[in-house]
């Protein structure tokens, strides 16, 4: 596996914010869970009527899922399994040789 399979089970959430209450709630949630911001690049840039893409480690997925549900914040999965997507992006060296 590429990167020693470190991204297996990690996911990318797309969270949709419609008002400032949700913005504050999400900032609070993301203050507790270590995520990798994809877009925007930091929590300080989160604003209402926008989407937030975050890379979530597999051990934090349930927690983030539950908290978003609790706060009734809309979200969907952009990438279900990051490791698989990484393998697909460049194909493993052996497939490259095949190419």
């Amino acid at each position, binding site marked *: 596996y590429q990167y020693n399979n470190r991204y297996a089970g990690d996911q990318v959430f797309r969270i949709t914010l419609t008002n400032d209450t949700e913005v504050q709630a999400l900032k609070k949630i993301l203050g507790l869970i270590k995520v*990798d911001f*994809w*877009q925007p*690049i*930091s929590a300080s840039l989160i604003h209402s009527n926008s989407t937030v893409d975050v890379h979530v480690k597999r051990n934090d997925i349930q927690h983030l899922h539950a908290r978003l549900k609790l706060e009734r914040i809309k979200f969907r999965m952009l*990438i279900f399994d990051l490791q698989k997507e*990484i393998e697909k992006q460049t194909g493993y060296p052996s497939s490259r040789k095949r*190419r």
Partner: protein
Amino acid sequence: SESQYDYEVYHSLEEIQNWMFEMNRSHPELVTMLSLGKSYEGRQLYVLQLGKRNLPPKKSVWIDCGIHAREWIGPAFCQWFVKEALSSYKYDSVMTQLLNHLDFFIMPVFNVDGYRFSWNTDRFWRKTRSKNHKFHCRGVDANRNWKVKWGNVGASSHPCDDTYCGPFPESEPEVKAVAKFLRKHKKHMKAYISIHAYAQMLLYPYSYKYEPIPNFNCVESAAQSAVTALYSAYGVRYRYGPAATTLYVSSGSSIDWAYRNGIPYAFAFELRDTGHFGFLLPESLIKPTCTETLKAVKAIALGLLKKC
């Protein structure tokens, strides 16, 4: 060799650098390879100068790719641009005109240490790889490290943040080397273009404030013609406008620095996509993404040959 090089896959830093040597070797009439200095980890900062050799010095365009390590489509585009420029010289009238009247300075991998780290260790690394003697976190956001409103809004002063601006402006040898080169060539440098991902936008100054730039009309029309050209390829729509209002406010960015240092046209492309694959844009999308972006860059460059 050149004919076997696959521009529709992502390449390691070593492959890209070997490819640059090959481009320099096989196109002596149009290509010169430069090194601007060394990165934090001691890697060469290579640039390819493209353009017909003639005197006096010509108007110049700078294109850098890969300021943020995980945005792999950037380096892929820089290589695509060089390949298309060289293969279509004398066959495509526009590219022939551009290479006869402009010099292009292409930096396929700005953040060489970060790219290598993203290729081998952490796919989603963004920053450089400099060390901070007080914190265990490494790296500076090379697009927050330029001496323009440095360390201000939209940048972080915490070394562990992804938007860390660094201990001082141009603290990163990569940024310092490019800034020094652009300062040296300032007289002839008419456009600065920086390739990023993902948002599908074409941004121009300012990032750090909402005030419009003095030559707003000319820059806006150049941006409009660029995104129109881009759209003509596959119908992909890019938003365009001042970075502060179109994306978000941030300080210490390269396009603001370039503009404030006298380069009249400064753009940052945020290439595909808008989040479906994000940084993991598949290799199957390298060709369409680079084809449409090339049209946009040619439109911007052509605009430099006309009066605005």
